[in-house]
């Protein structure tokens, strides 16, 4: 009877351990999603953001990208390899043209075609106000490639998919 009791307690501990491992040790998919969470947080801008916060966020944005990173945005004639500094200055310039910005991601589809490479398809929505008070509301489908370098997943390619082709 006592042996049975210890056996049940042991089994319970093992089950709790397995559940804990699955919940608290993030999977690669969760780690990839986390990078998008950071991108969303650091690209977004509140109306009361000061110059110091703006610079800090801009620096953090740079840490998310591989060097170089391939960007392809057909509607803005943007295509090619960009260094981290170039991406940071592009982000800085874009964020300075808006007073408020909210970037959100939806419909993640994450696959790992090779070890340490993640391919992510998702919908990105930008909502906000321009510096002159105009409404900003842009939705695009993105295809992103992230590479695991060291322990971090870094954006190595971002392409805007042309859902509607004029």
């Amino acid at each position, binding site marked *: 009877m006592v042996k049975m009791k210890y056996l049940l307690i042991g089994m319970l501990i093992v089950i709790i351990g397995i559940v804990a491992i699955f919940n608290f040790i993030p999977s690669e998919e969760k780690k990839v999603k986390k990078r998008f969470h950071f991108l969303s947080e650091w690209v977004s801008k509140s109306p009361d953001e000061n110059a110091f916060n703006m610079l800090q966020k801009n620096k953090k944005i740079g840490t998310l990208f591989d060097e170089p990173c391939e960007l392809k945005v057909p509607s803005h004639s943007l295509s090619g390899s960009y260094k981290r500094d170039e991406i940071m200055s592009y982000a800085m310039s874009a964020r300075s043209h808006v007073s408020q910005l909210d970037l959100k991601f*939806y419909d993640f589809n994450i696959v790992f075609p090779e070890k340490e490479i993640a391919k992510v398809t998702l919908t990105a929505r930008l909502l906000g106000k321009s510096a002159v008070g105009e409404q900003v509301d842009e*939705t695009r489908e993105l295809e992103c490639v992230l590479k695991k370098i060291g322990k971090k997943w870094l954006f190595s390619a971002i392409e805007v998919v042309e*859902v*509607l082709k*004029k």
Partner: protein
Amino acid sequence: MEPTYHDGGMNFCWRLPYFFSEPKRHDVVAVRFAGSKVMLLKRVVALEDEQVEFKDGKLYVDGKGMDEPYVHFPCDWNLPSRRVEKDCVYVIGDNRSMSIESHHFGQTSKSRMMGVPLW
């Protein structure tokens, strides 16, 4: 899609129609991006293999001026003629009060048609 559908309004997407039939001209359709959480509401104006163009704000399909009673805000858009590719349709919103550059419209794959608004 003003004035047919208002910004911030609520609707449901009825997904059955395009399981059994092809999109037709003047249908209002929900076009998906990467998934079904964010969709665009647009109107089909031209079908596969048709030529579509704008001349001084008037829509022409295969050279014929289209009657569009659902457009309440006139525009002055000009768009050179282009052929709609295989398995695609050409969609535009009803609200054309903005510049052609600011309006999100064009050719899209039929596989992106999720359905029609329920009302």
